[in-house]
């Protein structure tokens, strides 16, 4: 025991100076990220001339614009995440277990969507499903309708569909990784013994996918709560989310205290979801 200590002690002392190397990057992050974050919280308690005003917090939290934005944000996020999980699971099952020539290339193509700006999809949807878009023109010509029949783009559903496109790759990636570890022999044995595909999916494949679905799903919840570009580009009056409300209050109305109060709520929500994601990812080893 004492020998072990004697050997361990000098190395521990030797390591001491190396520990300070963490200070420069940590200080940079503290100055540029955590200090501004703390000031948002401080500003939430002060009105724009710098006087403490706690009543304003209660007013904002009870206001209709805030409650509506919060409900919108949560509804869109949960619906879009459910959509991503379903679409991602279906696509991953086909790519992994019913592959076709070129399926590897298609998987990589979907993966590049992660690197593309999110508003690209919204802009494309304007041309596809907008009131003068391809779908509506086609339907109006075919059935000689006076008005565009498809009208979901400038609503919650337009945002949800765009977010499903943008965030499905975040589900697909861990799912394909999980599926590549599933034993093919087990599936073949089950199917030789007469198990139908649905039963194989339910009993063999899905249990292997659950960690990836939980981790990917909580990442999707976080990203959709924070999404800004898609909602801004759709620009529907009725679809205001928390990030859009913060932008509107700070930049268009210069109401910094209101913006900071909403930002505190938004950040708390995001950090909660981030905790969930880290917990899920750490617990399940994804």
């Amino acid at each position: 025991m004492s020998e072990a200590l004697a050997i361990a002690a000098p190395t521990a002392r030797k390591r001491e100076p190396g520990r300070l190397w963490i200070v420069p990057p940590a200080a940079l992050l503290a100055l540029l990220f955590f200090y501004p974050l703390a000031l948002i919280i401080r500003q939430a308690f002060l009105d724009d001339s710098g006087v403490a005003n706690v009543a304003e917090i209660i007013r904002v939290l009870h206001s209709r614009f805030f409650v509506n934005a919060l409900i919108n944000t949560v509804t869109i996020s949960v619906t879009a995440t459910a959509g991503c999980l379903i679409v991602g699971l279906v696509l991953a099952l086909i790519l992994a277990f019913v592959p076709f020539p070129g399926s590897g290339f298609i998987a990589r193509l979907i993966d590049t969507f992660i690197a593309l700006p999110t508003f690209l999809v919204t802009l494309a949807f304007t041309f596809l499903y907008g009131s003068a878009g391809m779908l509506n023109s086609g339907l109006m010509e075919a059935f000689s309708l006076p008005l565009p029949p498809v009208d979901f783009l400038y609503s919650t559903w337009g945002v949800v569909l765009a977010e499903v496109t943008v965030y499905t790759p975040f589900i697909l990636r861990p799912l394909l990784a999980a599926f590549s570890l599933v034993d093919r022999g087990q599936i073949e044995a089950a199917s030789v013994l007469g198990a139908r595909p649905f039963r194989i999916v339910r009993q063999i494949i899905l249990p292997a996918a659950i960690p990836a679905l939980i981790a990917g799903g909580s990442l999707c919840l976080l990203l959709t709560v924070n999404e800004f570009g898609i909602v801004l580009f759709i620009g529907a009056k009725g679809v205001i989310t928390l990030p859009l409300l913060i932008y509107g209050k700070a930049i268009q109305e210069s109401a910094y205290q209101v913006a900071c109060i909403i930002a505190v709520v938004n950040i708390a929500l995001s950090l909660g979801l981030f905790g969930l994601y880290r917990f899920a990812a750490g617990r399940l080893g994804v």
Partner: protein
Amino acid sequence: MLVWSRSGRLVIWVIFALIFGVLFLAPLAVILLSSLADQWNGVLPNGLTTEHYADVAKGAAWNAVKASLVTGFAASALALVSGTWAALSLRLQGPALKRLLGLLFFIPSAVPSVSVGLGLLVAFSHPPLLLNGTIAIVMIAHFVLISAFTFGNVSAGLARLSPDFEQVASSLGARPAYRLRHVTLPLLAPYLVAAFGLSFALSMGELGATVMVYPPGWVTLPVSIFSLTDRGDIFAGAALTMILVAATLVLLLGLERITKRATGS
């Protein structure tokens, strides 16, 4: 193979083609088509033209491309240095501090971009730290948002590195600085390039924090695409979006080729 019958497989592939076509292929194809569309009153454009590209090239496009590239490069370079530095020096910490600091370096990726922009406005709008209205505040916003991704990528690379090389170098008497320069960093190089590429792509498409802090005269591509489409000029917006996509893809493919050549595969 999960489905054995030929007809069953065909049905499943048709389902796949439908989902893929509607959700992924149609948006990309339609952006390309609309950026080239002459007039678009029916299902398909009446004719094709390169006029929108000429228009944006005459307008603010080059300034926007320059602003995006310079911002992306500066922010990614700083994020690469600070992320690599953090990931390397985190290895020297005790386990408890390592976990805590590792978590703190990840937190910027969880905070909404608009709030990052708001925080910078609140913090740096007064002397002595007056950055509001400068180009630097845009770069800082991008740096904060991408720093967690760079840190994450480099940490993942470090975790996969076999410790043998570093131990051999140390046992042969290499000093820490020499070992870092000639052993650890070259082994990490592919991960560093990948991290740089990903953060550059993220920065090129960043909108939420940029609209909060950008000064007049430093309008990035996403912001100018938004102001074009907001004005109703959606065809020019589509052309500028294609320029953004092309610039991002060229950059990512270029970096991938450099990595492949460097690693000799």
